[in-house]
């Protein structure tokens, strides 16, 4: 056995690099022959005969060597290695072809790999938690608010946690931001209040320390768990961080745990959610625990027990909800409030918003890859024509058609493999390099390194590409070898076949390119429409950031108001500032507070649901600072203070909805329902709608009020959550960056421990809000441009080749008196015919596929005729150019030379 193993290993080793063994064998054989020759000479043969006799006695030298090779090595492996060597050599001999083929496929495979890795992360693995398919959100549907599932109230959350049976854990969380101070300059961090059960629900363990206990939650113990990022950044990756203190809103919290790298919760992607850097116990206050039917702001997340279905989980929650409803007292006016509860899988909620984007990109990249394949197949066909004689000779020499075919496929595989390698590098590099254009919610996912699924995908498409690209031209080449390419007629009939096949490929290519062009065109139009929509504010020459006043340092309204006033005074005193203000919301920020209100003398038809509007409390010249445009009436003035009659400014939506056709100035409204004791506010101005969630989302109704006029009457919860955390906005001369720096300086001058979060020019806020669309458009444009270039190369290649093939015919025509113009028209006509057929097919393809884009489009219909027309025209012009160059060359053929050439 030992001897056989040894021999097996040596044979394997001889597959690779047996040059030394070969040399040694040659030397040994030579010496053997010499000895034999000597012997024959000794026996008296003349030298000439001695040599011949020696060779005869030895036998065929080459046969012996071949038997030796078979014996010492593994033949089929050796063959494969030699084929590979041959393929490498062949490809190296035509560097132009090889480079173009590899570059084309690398582009296709690279783009496909990059997009697939995004899609894999976004759609297949959106949740970085174990057994994530058992995670659900708990939502309530409250008919008097609306029919959409919403979050839950604090007391309901507790009931679901305690009274359900189908869940291994029910957890609650709510986003919050903290001022983190203690070391160096303070900063604002994103955090979450979470119930201790959250970590059990996510099945996440800290990498250091522990998670919260129920006791800590109940007793409101100031402890916190920090993210890996914060641990590194704020605590310098201190291994003894446990027990150290983080000062949150000027109150010390003890660090009891560090979550591992890669743990992210809550997940970006669910609307308006930012990943937290720190977690504190939920520790619901007594007021929160009693706020039944009041504040639906609590996110509930649960893990279903193994084997439990979504329907069972929902039923479990619903029975708890029914119990809660049955114990509710009727409202003062006698109506009974009712609501229901549902479980909804978490994964689709995270991946859902990305799905249209990612599937579109997958489709586009598949088109591009196909075009790349078609192009390379075309190149291979042209190359096959030149090599038919080579194949025929190899077959004649006894190579076997199978072997020649294998050789061809191997060459293609080699091209595809090198392209896949280059493409993977390209994908890896581009995902890293262009990460800044990737929208935040996708970028978080794209951080994932290449995993085995992506690798498998790349290997898979490489093989698919080889089959697609290599087999057809390979079979064609072999079939023609059988027809004996060594004689001219066989070759000629082969040319006709091949020309037809290549024309078909070009048509397919043009059609695919048109689909991509139309897609990119639609996204482009929709993007320019998006940028042209009026955002409701003036993004130029202004900057904003959010400032939070910690409760411990600012315990009462007076202190708060005083601080905001001091800040505004400082801002106004700055030389570069024209206007400054603070407000509880910021355009396109998404943060807002929606409240029930009652308009007086409404012209709207009476309905059963409540009237809801976003409420923004402002101070200073907030509306002027964001650049809201006044439609009617006036802005707030310094006279609208606590002593004056309370006033409001509404957006056009409110005017149109409630006082349509009437003069809005002087109309009255109040917060709360009809019986609310809130004071009536008088409308003094109307501004254009200000976009809140995104450029593509219609702005809902908004009402602006003065903070000093409402501070005394708003609920404590509103004061705590909104009036203590405001956006400061400055507008003025000079650069927006300068204004931002001024804002930060003014805030620090008021209180050196305060920090400004998300401080940026308003123009950047606008740009960021359109970044998913921009990303989408950029990628589609890149794909479409690549497709257009490949299609042009394809058309050019086929036409140029056909001109070369028809040189004789062209020469003959010219000799018979055809003028250059006629010739150009003849060839141009053929190229344009191909382009037109491709465009027609592509239009049909685009009509079928573009409706899938609908959810990504803004203001443009999927079957937008101008886009279709422009794309077709562009492709036609490019195809015409690609045809014109070879046509022109044909017309310059010298008939004498052309006729003599064969």
């Amino acid at each position: 056995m030992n001897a056989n193993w040894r021999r097996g290993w040596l044979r394997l080793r001889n597959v690779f690099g047996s040059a030394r063994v070969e040399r040694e064998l040659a030397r040994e054989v030579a010496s053997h022959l010499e000895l034999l020759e000597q012997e024959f000479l000794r026996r008296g043969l003349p030298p000439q005969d001695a040599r011949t006799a020696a060779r005869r006695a030895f036998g065929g030298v080459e046969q012996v060597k071949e038997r030796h090779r078979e014996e010492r090595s593994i033949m089929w492996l050796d063959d494969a290695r030699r084929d590979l060597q041959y393929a490498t050599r062949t490809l190296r001999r035509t560097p132009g072809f090889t480079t173009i083929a590899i570059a084309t496929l690398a582009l296709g495979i690279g783009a496909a790999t990059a997009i697939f890795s995004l899609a894999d992360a976004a759609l297949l693995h959106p949740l970085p938690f174990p057994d994530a398919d058992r995670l659900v959100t708990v939502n309530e549907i409250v008919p008097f608010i609306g029919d959409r599932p919403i979050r839950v109230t604090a007391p309901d959350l507790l009931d679901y946690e305690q009274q359900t049976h189908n869940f291994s854990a029910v957890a609650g969380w709510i986003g919050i931001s903290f001022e983190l101070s203690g070391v160096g300059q303070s900063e604002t961090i994103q955090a979450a209040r979470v119930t201790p059960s959250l970590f059990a629900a996510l099945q996440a363990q800290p990498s250091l320390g522990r998670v919260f206990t129920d006791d800590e939650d109940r007793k409101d113990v100031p402890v916190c768990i920090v993210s890996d990022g914060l641990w590194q950044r704020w605590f310098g990756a201190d291994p003894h961080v446990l027990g150290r203190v983080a000062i949150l809103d000027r109150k010390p919290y003890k660090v009891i745990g560090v979550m591992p790298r890669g743990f992210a919760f809550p997940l970006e992607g669910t609307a308006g959610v930012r990943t937290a850097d720190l977690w504190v116990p939920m520790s619901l206050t007594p007021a929160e625990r009693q706020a039944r039917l009041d504040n639906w702001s609590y996110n509930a997340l649960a893990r279903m027990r193994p084997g439990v279905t979504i329907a069972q989980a929902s039923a479990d929650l619903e029975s708890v909800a029914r119990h809660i409803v049955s114990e509710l007292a009727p409202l003062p006016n006698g109506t009974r409030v009712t609501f229901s509860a549902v479980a909804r899988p978490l994964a689709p909620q995270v991946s859902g918003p990305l799905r249209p984007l990612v599937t579109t990109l997958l489709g586009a990249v598949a088109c591009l890859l196909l075009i790349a394949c078609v192009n390379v197949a075309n190149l291979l066909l042209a190359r096959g024509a030149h090599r038919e004689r080579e194949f025929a000779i190899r077959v004649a020499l006894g190579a076997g058609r199978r072997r020649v075919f294998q050789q061809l496929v191997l060459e293609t595989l080699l091209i595809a493999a090198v392209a896949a390698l280059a493409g993977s590098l390209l994908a890896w590099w581009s995902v890293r390099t262009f990460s800044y254009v990737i929208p935040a919610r996708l970028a978080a996912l794209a951080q994932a390194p290449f995993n085995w699924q992506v690798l498998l995908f790349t290997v898979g498409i490489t093989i698919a590409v080889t089959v697609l690209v290599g087999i057809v031209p390979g079979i064609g080449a072999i079939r023609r070898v059988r027809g004996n390419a060594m004689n001219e007629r066989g070759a000629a009939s082969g040319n006709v076949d091949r020309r037809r096949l290549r024309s078909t490929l070009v048509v397919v290519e043009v059609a695919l390119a048109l689909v991509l062009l139309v897609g990119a065109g639609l996204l482009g139009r929709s993007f320019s429409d998006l940028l042209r929509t009026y955002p409701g504010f003036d993004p130029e020459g202004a900057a904003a950031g959010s400032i939070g006043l910690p409760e411990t340092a600012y315990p009462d309204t007076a202190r708060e108001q005083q601080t905001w006033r001091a800040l505004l005074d400082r801002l106004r005193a700055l030389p570069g500032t024209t206007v400054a203000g603070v407000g509880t919301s910021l355009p396109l920020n998404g943060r807002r507070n929606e409240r029930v209100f009652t308009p007086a003398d409404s012209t709207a038809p009476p309905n059963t649901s409540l009237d809801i509007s976003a409420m923004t409390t402002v101070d200073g010249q907030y509306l002027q600072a964001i650049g809201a445009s006044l439609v009617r009436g006036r802005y707030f003035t310094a006279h609208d203070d606590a002593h004056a009659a309370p006033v409001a400014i509404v957006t056009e939506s409110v005017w149109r909805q409630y006082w349509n056709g009437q003069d809005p100035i002087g109309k009255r409204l109040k917060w709360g329902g009809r019986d609310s004791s809130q004071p009536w506010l008088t409308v003094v101005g109307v501004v254009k709608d200000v976009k809140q969630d995104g450029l593509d989302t219609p702005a809902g109704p908004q009402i602006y009020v003065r903070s000093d006029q409402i501070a005394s009457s708003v609920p404590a919860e509103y004061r705590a959550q909104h009036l203590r955390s405001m956006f400061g906005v400055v507008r003025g001369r000079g650069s927006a960056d300068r204004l931002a720096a001024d804002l930060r300086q003014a805030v620090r001058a008021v209180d050196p421990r305060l920090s400004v979060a998300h401080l940026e020019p308003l123009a950047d806020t606008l740009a960021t809000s359109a970044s998913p669309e921009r990303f989408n458009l950029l990628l589609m444009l890149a794909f479409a441009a690549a497709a257009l270039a490949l299609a042009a190369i394809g058309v050019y290649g086929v036409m140029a080749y056909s001109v070369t093939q028809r040189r004789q015919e062209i020469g003959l025509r010219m000799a018979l008196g055809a003028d250059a113009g006629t010739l150009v028209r003849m060839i141009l006509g053929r190229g344009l015919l191909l382009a037109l057929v491709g465009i027609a097919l592509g239009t049909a393809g685009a009509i079928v596929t573009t409706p899938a884009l609908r959810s990504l489009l803004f203001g443009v219909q999927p079957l937008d005729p101008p886009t279709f027309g422009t794309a077709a025209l562009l492709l036609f012009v490019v195809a015409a150019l690609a045809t014109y160059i070879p046509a022109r060359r044909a017309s310059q053929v010298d008939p004498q030379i052309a006729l003599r050439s064969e």
Partner: protein
Amino acid sequence: MTSGRKPKVEILQGTLDLIVLRALFTMGPQHAYSLATRLEQVTEHPLMLNQGTLYPALVRLEQKGWIKGAWQKTENNRDAKYYAITRAGTRALDEQTERWRRLAGLVDRLLLDES
């Protein structure tokens, strides 16, 4: 190589290896030429079609570690590769000889019984 000749080689293979080992064991290190000549003498007629046929057997035995080749000078001061049997080769020779004897005895008995 055509597959038609394979069975014959297969039968020969075991025997040829054994004969080479035996020759090297009794005569000491030999080069391929002297080995071939020796084998022709021993069998009193050309055992093999030609001397080159020896090479596959030599490389096979060398890869198994049973013989070892080294370049030396012949008595006429020419370079030749001399093969010597190794210790593993000697052990293998004993085993193979024993096995061959048993096989030959068995075949003998079977053939005698048959007739």
